[in-house]
């Protein structure tokens, strides 16, 4: 029926990496992840909030994060996500790849 996935992040796959990074600092639920990413980017990165959930499903299916029901910071029932050992390894790999990529782009853009 002709619908296309809308990608609003400039670097494909970077959302996964951001989520993993955020979770590597502590357990969080969905809303808090978005908040966290926005705050730590100095409100530079705006995530389409809905896109978070497909990404979370994907990460969980890959076994990189683990979700459990629990209480959020303001005492509501929500799914709290934490990063797994496999997820940490993945994060290191992705960070490495990201570094190489940005370096390469920077070279092309002659920003050195």
């Amino acid at each position, binding site marked *: 029926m002709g619908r296309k996935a809308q990608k609003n992040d400039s670097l494909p796959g970077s959302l996964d990496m951001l989520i993993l990074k955020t979770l590597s600092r502590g357990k969080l639920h*969905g*809303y808090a992840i978005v908040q966290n990413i926005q705050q730590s980017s100095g409100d530079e990165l705006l995530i389409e909030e809905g*896109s*978070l959930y497909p990404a979370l499903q994907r990460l969980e299916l*890959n076994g990189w994060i683990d979700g459990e029901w629990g209480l*959020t910071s303001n005492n509501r029932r*929500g799914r709290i996500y934490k990063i797994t050992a496999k997820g940490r390894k993945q994060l290191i790999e992705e960070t490495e790849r990201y570094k190489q990529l940005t370096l390469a782009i920077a070279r092309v853009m002659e920003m050195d």
Partner: protein
Amino acid sequence: MLLRRLRYWLESGKRAAALREEMELHIQEKAAELRDRGFSERDALAEARRRFGNFTFKQEESRDVWIMRWWSELCQDVRYGVRTLSSQPGFTFAAVLTLVLGIGVNAVFFNVYNSLAFAPWGIRDGASAVQVWAERGPGMWSGMSWPHFRYLRDNAQTFEGLAAFSGTPFRVYSGDASWDLETVTVNGNYFDVLGTGFTLGRGFTTTSDDERDRPAEAVLHYDTWRSRFGGDPGVIGRPLEIGGHRVEVVGVAAAGFDGGAPSKPAIWLPAAWHDVTHPGQSMTNADDCCRALIGRLKATASRQQAQAELNTLSAQFLSAASQKPQRILLTSASFLANPRRSTQFSTILLPIAVAFFLILLLACANVSNLQLARGSSRGREIAVRLALGAGRGRVLRQLMVESLLLSTLAGILSLVVSAAVPARIFDMAAGSPGTLTFRFENDIRVYAFVLLAVFAATLFSGLLPALQTVRTIDLNGLREGTRATARGWTRSILLAAQVALCAILLSGTMLLVRSLNNVRDANVGFDHRSLIVTSTGLETSGATQREAPGLIDELTAAVAALPGVETVAWASPIPLGEDFSDTDITNPSTNERIDAGVGAVSAGFFRALGVPLLAGRDFGPRDSTDSNLVIINEAMAQRLFPGENAVGKSLRSSRQLEVIGVVRNFTTMRFGSDEIPFLWKTASPGLGTTILIRYSGPVEPILHTLPGRARELDRRFLLSAAPYSETIAAAQGSSRRMAAVAGVLAGLCLLVACVGIYGVAAYNAAQRTREMGIRMAMGAQPRAVIVMVIRENLRTVIAGGMLGIVGAIGFGQLLTSWLYGVKPGDAFSIVTAMSILLATSVLAALIPARRCSRVDPAITLRQE
């Protein structure tokens, strides 16, 4: 990963709810944050939702992560398909029934083939067993003699175990009872190699393989134990008598163990009993035939190695025994594994397989027509779906899923058919149930085959109509309805062919039914009332051919002395009995040669039958039993000696014969064979001779005393006596079965053709709905419309019917030997068949025609 995906999928419902809750929470929190920033209550929620994006879409996208979309859509299609099909029960019924026919005959056929070609008999681990064949003549693969087997068994290194067996029906006495049982003689480790254990007792020991030693032991088949010994747990040690020797039951084989013969064993004996059950054969004769061999290879040996080894050993043995060399072949353990059988059967099976595949195609073509008709009447629904944004691929898939549902349902029903039908057919062919060891079970191969057939049927019956439906319907369909497509010539030709086939089968059935009617009041030309037929049971008793004349003479004398008995005679074979031989007869003076039936009879045979001598004399008691004197029937006399007196003339067959009498024609081999030349000799009676008894007064006392009287004479007699009318009924039975088979086939064919006719008529009608609407708007009567639609369909039917008449006359010729009192081109039969066909076709076309006539002209005009 895959496992996790599967778990996610299984918990899909729970997971979707969790996801929903999670996303809802997100929006709530966002809204709370926005409220803190000064948004009003209502704006906050709205803004939160706006920033979140399309809720449902995101939900779908998240679900897609764990459920592949095509799968969830497929589930939708299946649900939708089930709803559609159950809302049209008439269509569904017709389509499924047609497909059951198409898939069913193939499933039954494959089940039979599977069981013959692959399935090993009821033995332990049949898949790893090998059969050993020796080529005793070119292409004649069979078993081997005992010494031959023993040499192989003692010297082969590649075999873990080698079993030999040979079976025959034989008389077994137990107390006062006696039965003819399938008796199988086996070597000592037969049960070790093949067996599945024992319900009671034990098997034989290997010492029983010595020809000088004949252990008096027997093992019962589980079914024999149940049926003949009532499942008595104390049967071990029970004495039995076989061929005048005593044996003791030592074991009952485990239920389901059948050994390895196509005929189901009833009792097993040690190998040396072969000489008793096969009079004239010997354990020490290297030329005797045949023990079947089944063995198991050592884990280290391949079949090629074993075959090479056995060939070498066999050559050694045969040259030492100064026999011609025989090639050895190892095959898997199944009925068709024997190369001779497999070539015989492939010539039979292949044409049947092709024919059945054509039936499947035909059934699919008919369902395809039905689908087409339905597709064009569903045009509106499909156009709406397209307009609402469904992709063409999606609609196509939807239609295919419906076809798949139909075929699957048909496949399941076909499995039921294939589980039930083959055993019935084989039991009917074998004459009594449970005598063969084939098990027609739906095993993994049958399931795979049916699955394949289901997919094939889906493609053949669904793809074409689905493509055509999707292609011809576009968005304009919403406004205009559908446009007629090109005329389907293929459809008409297919239909005509079906009708022709139907006509042939129907008229064949009519011929057989007419013939049956005639047979019922047939005049057999002899007086079959007050006549008793008795088989002696000597063939399986262990008596030798040399003893036969003495035994038969003794019996006939004793029977003649019974009160109420008028005449006793013997014959081999008897009129309307089962086996008949024929021979070439030449008139030496004219050299005219004819084919004639031959029988051996005693003096008094014609008197017992009540057939008058037209000339000459009957056999007398003093006619030497191997003399050249013959009596011929009127038909032969007229053929070879027209206008002359045949008595005293000589005939030439394998030797010179002299005619001493001519009898009036009467039925000899089968109904309607009165006019076939026949000659009777008088020879010494064999073991298979049948006794004929003419009596007066009530029949019961004679039938009652006969078996007991015979047993008093010699306990090897196991008489089964019955009035001659039963022999006649049995002879009629075979024509009745033939008529039933033809009738069933014709009925099925008629059914398939009906669906075909209906499909084409419905399709054409749907195509012309608008035209009919206009016609009716212009004043045509509904009746006229109905007549018009039916007439158009009848054109194809009549064309097919004409073709069918030609075929029917040819088919009748093939049936000639089954027909009595009816000519193959019998007009009545053909006309009846055609009337049935026409009436059915009109009925089949009536439904769509009526639908056409009910078109509301106003609606049609508005659509234009």
